[in-house]
């Protein structure tokens, strides 16, 4: 594989790779995920249109005429987003796709890791594990057998803001799949022996993950940027924080935050809204209430700059992670920052960092930058790994690139190429059910306007050299960034 982007900063790799391919098969997914998270980040700033609610029985649909000016496609590029709100307040977003007989969906609830109690990082993640493991009606073995018998792919996982339940089914098993989804969310089992077992497995996995420089850097970066606030810890927790979690903690999180209001069900696949709504109503009508803490309200983190840390790990490479605070999803700076980030290090071989650090100097296999817009202010990160003896040189090259951009050196040809890449690749970012579901969940959860896809292409095209210069001036001064290094302590 010529280039493989590691995933986001809080990734925990729990399994050894045993891939015969020298590349990692998932790399294709990775760039799509990174792109999607940034892409879906454009949120409320586009317009402050309220989301039209659909009265029962009448489903408005919104035709989004994206791409009409960019492409002359022979196929329809426009995902037509249909929405409805169930009586209990759950928003449903659907894109129909009838080319494969399957349906994918994601239920996103405001119960992510930022709601973990202090010193109990991993609570949300443990809740996800428990809700997918068994229910009040089915013990673990019976539940596992039931899901496998239907060939249903179902599971829960946490991110910083959300607790997500994902379901993928062959079309014919959709009713059974929805039975499973609703039973898992509405009727938790809370079996103590399963809690103890999952907890001890997660602790063992957390210890194992400390072999990875990425895990250590992610934990240190989160702590540095956010301290004890909600984003200040890894989503999955640490060996120590997991130890402190009790059953009451995950039950409390469930009681407070797993509610239909503020949650979103994103659906893509071989189904119509007319077929879907009765299936949902029959299963989810008894689910009621609104979350104790609003989905999108987060206090600002204090700003820390120019911190340096070195964590020891007996590796041959040094992992260098630059970080600082970025923006929230609601920020007006989204588009300039989005385009600037691709110019800097988010666009693979089109980016300046890749050119200077890898292509010109051969110092790294990969170097990349990203920012994660969240309900609150999310992080900005630049990461690379290089032979320990080259770390100092690589840091200087990165700082030089940031400095030049911060001082206004922006190549308009490169910027145009970046914009062409972003707008031209628009359709491929939503050409599978999996991607569409992720996108719809973001649109719904963060209350983006339903026409934002159309806005998106225009907004990217509207970013000027001056906009990129301004945003680089605000965000790229190297002295405002923190640096964490993970690797051998002394090697020159």
């Amino acid at each position, binding site marked *: 594989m010529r280039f493989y982007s590691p995933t986001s900063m809080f990734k925990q790799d729990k399994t050894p790779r045993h891939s*015969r391919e020298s590349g990692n098969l998932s790399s294709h997914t990775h760039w799509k995920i990174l792109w999607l998270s940034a892409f879906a980040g454009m949120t409320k700033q586009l317009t402050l249109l309220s989301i039209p609610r659909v009265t029962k029985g009448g489903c408005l649909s919104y035709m989004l005429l994206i791409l009409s000016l960019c492409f002359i496609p022979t*196929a329809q590029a426009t995902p037509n987003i249909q929405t409805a709100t169930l009586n209990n307040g759950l928003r449903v977003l659907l894109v129909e*796709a009838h080319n494969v007989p*399957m349906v994918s969906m994601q239920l996103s609830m405001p119960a992510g890791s930022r709601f973990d109690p202090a010193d109990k990082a991993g609570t949300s993640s443990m809740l996800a594990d428990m809700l997918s493991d068994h229910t009040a009606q089915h013990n673990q073995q019976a539940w596992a057998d039931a*899901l496998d018998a239907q060939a249903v792919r179902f599971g829960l996982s946490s991110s910083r803001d959300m607790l997500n339940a994902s379901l993928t089914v*062959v079309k014919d098993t959709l009713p059974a799949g929805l039975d499973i989804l609703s039973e898992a969310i509405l009727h938790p089992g809370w079996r103590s022996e399963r809690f103890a077992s999952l907890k*001890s497995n997660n602790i063992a996995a957390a*210890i*194992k993950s400390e072999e990875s420089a990425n895990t250590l850097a992610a934990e240190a970066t989160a702590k540095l940027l956010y301290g004890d606030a909600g984003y200040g810890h890894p989503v999955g927790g640490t060996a120590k924080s997991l130890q402190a979690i009790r059953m009451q903690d995950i039950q409390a999180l469930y009681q407070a935050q797993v509610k239909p209001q503020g949650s979103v069900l994103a659906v893509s696949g071989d189904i119509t809204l007319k077929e879907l709504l009765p299936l949902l109503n029959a299963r989810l009508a008894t689910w009621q209430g609104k979350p104790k803490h609003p989905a999108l309200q987060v206090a600002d983190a204090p700003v820390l700059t120019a911190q340096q840390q070195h964590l020891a790990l007996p590796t041959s490479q040094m992992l260098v992670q630059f970080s600082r605070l970025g923006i929230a999803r609601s920020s007006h700076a989204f588009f300039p920052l989005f385009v600037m980030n691709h110019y800097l290090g988010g666009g693979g071989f089109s980016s300046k960092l890749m050119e200077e650090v890898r292509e010109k100097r051969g110092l790294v296999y990969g170097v990349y930058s990203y920012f994660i817009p969240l309900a609150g202010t999310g992080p900005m990160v630049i990461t690379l790994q290089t032979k320990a003896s080259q770390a100092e040189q690589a840091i200087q090259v990165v700082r030089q690139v940031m400095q030049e951009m911060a001082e206004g050196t922006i190549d308009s040809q490169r910027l145009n190429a970046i914009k062409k890449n972003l707008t*031209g690749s628009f359709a491929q970012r939503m050409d599978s059910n999996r991607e569409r579901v992720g996108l719809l969940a973001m649109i719904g959860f963060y209350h983006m306007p339903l026409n934002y896809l159309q806005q998106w292409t225009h907004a990217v095209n509207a970013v000027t050299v001056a906009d990129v210069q301004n945003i680089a001036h605000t965000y790229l001064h190297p002295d405002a960034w923190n640096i964490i290094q993970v690797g051998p302590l002394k090697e020159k």
Partner: protein
Amino acid sequence: MNRFHIYGAALLLFWSGMAQASTIQEASFANGVKLVVQEDHSAPVAMVQVWLKVGGRDEVPGKTGLAHVFEHMMFKGSDALKAGEYSKRIAAMGGRDNAFTSHDFTAYFETVPAKQVDTVLHMEAERFAHLSLRQKDFAKEIRVIMEERRMRTEDDPNSHMFEELSAAALRLHPYRNPVIGWMQDLEHLDISEVRAFYKQHYVARNATVVVVGDVDFKHLKHIVQKTFGAMPDVAVPPRFNPKEPEPLGAKRVEVHLPAKSPVLAITIPVPVWEPGHNDTQAAALAVATYMLSGGRSALLSQRLVKEQHKAFSVSAGYDPFGMGLDLWYAYGMLGNTQSASDLEAGLWSVMHELGTQKITPQRLQTAKRNIIASHIFAQDSLYLRAKTIGRMETVGIGAQHLDDWIQAIQSVTADDVHTVVQQFLQPKRATTGVLIPEVQS
């Protein structure tokens, strides 16, 4: 449990319905190039993949990593485009490009707006035929690849252990060497070897062009005729595929590295699928492996993690689409209070259970349904669709045979599963590897 209705043989029906809907169309050209197309007009995008019948298995001793180094050099310029320009052009048309190398194949791919497919094919054919291969580009790129190896293997104790395990498990078969190459070999490769590799392997007969998406087969036939089809016809020798001697007894490797906790893995050489020759055997191995490791009710995880707490995670894997053999594997990740020998005994006890105890019809049906469902879900991704086609073509199975594989899976009986487990998944045929954490000072 009766809330969950059983949906009979619906899955198989879906699969046949889908196979109808997404027909694979093929064309062969006089110089040996092959084109395989699957039209899908649901979005205005296309995945273009160029597959080569060359990979790690075609390297000679002392030159491991060459096929993968070569893959990197494909982005370093040609007569028409200077180094790095290829990817820039693809990016500017709104596309993404990358490549991957395995033991059995090398593939280059681009996801692009459908209207750009012709341009991409011209560009691919141009670099394929007129690569620059300059010393100064090589000198930089080999350093990048060493960093890649450090990141993937040297600094990852689990990958490192699996590399040692594969090397110990096989005597002749090239799956014993890492695709990225041993560091000692990478340090001594030079550009003349890269050029010789190019001349020998990057010829029309080794190339398959795969396109999936919003395209027209007839039109593409015309474009490929003008591009890849215009290359000279050069004969290629049969690929290196030695017959691995049968194991003579259990083998064992210990890997001592800085690590936080142990890993135990077992690997066993097993047959791959040869259509028409061993359909039942290969499909039964796939079903057996699914029962051990697939889904939530997987036997290994149910017994060893959930009931006996002998590991915090276990898994097994079988790849029926390799060449010559597959290194079947199972592994467990251990917490620091769990014992590797307990887990090892547990793994064999579960495999013994699968090989001897009654398999209920429901359990058999569940395994089949899930294997078929995975093939349906894979249709969601243009990348995976093109990849399945390219891979089946390149290893010699043929993309048209995917339906036969589904049929073979559907025909597996409980006795077939017992037979393959008893025949192949036995301790005396296995190589066991243990990652033993070194005390960190």
